[in-house]
């Protein structure tokens, strides 16, 4: 069984995202530990990319801060090694295809297995291109997570049927970032997903409040939150983990509330 499945065994899942190295890896590591402790079920670790085309301004700036700090992919692997000494929480990398490709796909994906990364989310790798990395992901037992968007329509069943780990449902058009309202008919999308697969699905993009998280987890298996956490890092820097811990607790409560 995929380790990712465990994330969905404690009721509805709260899935936080954090950009590694923003503002530095010590802070990232502290934030991951506190999120794991305060109720996160799966952690998405963002490997920064110079040109993150799927991100809104908040995460774009986090990428820039991390890269300006001199972060390298190898430093992030080392941080995960250190986290894995005692953390069992499922963790996945979220980054862009070029970060994996350029590092050397086999070296990258085999390292994921070695250090205990359970999955890979690549927003610029749609269904049509997944063969780029899928054989290696299977070889090294790393789940390649698929995304479904509000515009997927006739593609939903095709994507869902072959999905592994969990399905990332993109709540809204556009890029990542907090939104006051989510208007997509997500129920219909998830209905088609359920007809085609029994792997869990979580909703991301635009979620920031416990109320939104409750609503989104209510119609799926969990809520993914990125920009709201990055905003805390931008505001509090090295002191952010403490605030992120509180926030995690409130969000986990949000997703669990019925």
């Amino acid at each position, binding site marked *: 069984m995929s380790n990712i499945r465990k994330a969905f065994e404690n009721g509805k899942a709260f899935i936080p995202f954090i950009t590694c190295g923003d503002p530095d890896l010590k802070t990232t590591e502290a934030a991951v530990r506190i999120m794991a402790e305060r109720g996160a079920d799966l952690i998405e670790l963002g490997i920064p*990319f*110079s*040109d993150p*085309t*799927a991100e*809104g*301004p908040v995460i*774009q700036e986090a990428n*820039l801060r991390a*890269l300006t700090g001199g972060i*390298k*992919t190898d430093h992030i692997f080392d941080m995960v090694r250190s986290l894995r000494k005692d953390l069992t929480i499922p963790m996945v990398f979220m980054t*862009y*295809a*070029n*970060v*994996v*490709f*350029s*590092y050397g796909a086999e070296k990258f994906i085999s390292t994921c297995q070695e250090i205990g990364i359970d999955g890979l989310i690549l*927003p*610029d*790798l*749609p*269904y*049509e*291109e997944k*063969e*780029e990395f899928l054989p290696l992901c299977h070889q090294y037992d790393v789940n390649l997570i*698929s*995304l*479904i*968007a*509000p*515009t*997927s*329509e*006739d*593609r939903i069943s095709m*994507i869902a049927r072959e999905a592994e780990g969990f399905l990332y449902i*993109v709540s809204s*058009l*556009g*890029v990542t970032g907090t939104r006051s309202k989510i208007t997509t008919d997500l129920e219909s999308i998830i209905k088609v997903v359920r007809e085609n697969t029994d792997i869990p699905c979580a909703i991301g993009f635009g979620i920031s409040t416990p109320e939104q998280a409750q609503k989104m987890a209510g119609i799926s298996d969990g809520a993914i939150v990125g920009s709201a956490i990055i905003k805390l890092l931008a505001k509090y820097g090295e002191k952010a983990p403490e605030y992120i811990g509180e926030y995690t607790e409130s969000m986990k409560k949000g997703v669990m509330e019925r």
Partner: protein
Amino acid sequence: MSRGRFGIHGGQYIPETLMNALIELEEAYNYYKNDPAFNRELAELFCEYAGRPSRLYYAEKMTRDLGGARIYLKREDLNHTGAHKINNVLGQALLAKKMGKTRLIAETGAGQHGVATATAAALLDMECVVFMGEEDTKRQALNVYRMRLLGSEVVPVKTGTATLKDAVSEAMREWTSRISDTHYCLGSVMGPHPFPTIVRDFQAVISQEIKDQILEKEGRLPDAVLACVGGGSNAIGCFYHFIEDKDVRLIGCEAAGRGVDTFETAATIATGRLGIFHGMKSYFCQDSDGQIAPVYSISAGLDYPGIGPEHAHLHDIGRAEYVPVTDEEAVNAFEYLARTEGIIPAIESAHAVAHAMKIVPEMSRDQIVVINLSGRGDKDCAAIARYRGEDIHE
């Protein structure tokens, strides 16, 4: 392998949100490219509005001065809006209109593609938003004014290096947030499939005309065709119909900036390596972790860290050569062509002129070289003056 491949290059590395839009675009294009009414309408726009066919001009003085091969200049600079960009834009705007889209978005570097898109939008009654790196809005202030004059909104992009690649990223982001009424009018032979094919097909009119014109004037094909390459749309346009004519050398001139041994360069084939970015697999300037490099060139239109996938393939199979040309060489060529032929080329096109100046003297007098003059240089005068230490106000 997925659709839209040129050898190993190309593909559709793009967020799921855009996949159906790309599929819809491909289907519409495959239908309309064979539709006689569409082609008639486009041919009429090319002829009556853009001023095609553009001239193939025998540069007699330059030929005499360099003392080698006979030089012809393909005068894309004489097109309406002053560059080859209008060919692709008229095609895509007409296609978008047929698809029921009411709004065009575009990226622009030097501003030529932005101006062309703004022009087509005005002509076809469409809304238009152009994304332009903030750095480029300063380098090309006149083009920003032209786009606004034509009724378009210009959005200065402040992220990253605030140049062409960031404008592309921002246009992609905008497209994911508004798809139903909006067509992304991509300006070069890059990005996800089907753009490299669509843009190439609309630009291929250049090589078709060169072929007809040179056969009429010289009774034979040229020995070499030269063009500047950023993303590579004017280059693929003037290479395309010669690809099967193996005796015709195809030479793409990349912007080397301050030199390929410096970090201030945009010469992708010379300094880049294989990667995945902006929807395609191709060669990119990048570091060992795959972070895209902040490239540099005096030419805002060539200041891009990648190259179109078909060029990457032509390079792989050795069918086309790609050579670096520095700022200094391009500026010298810019001034040389102005003095020698009374033609001020775009600083982009001056890169091709510069390389011709290197190879033509080594060639024999019965050989023929065609240089694609992709755009005119009025927009560059202030920047070149600054390069020479003279501050002029537009």
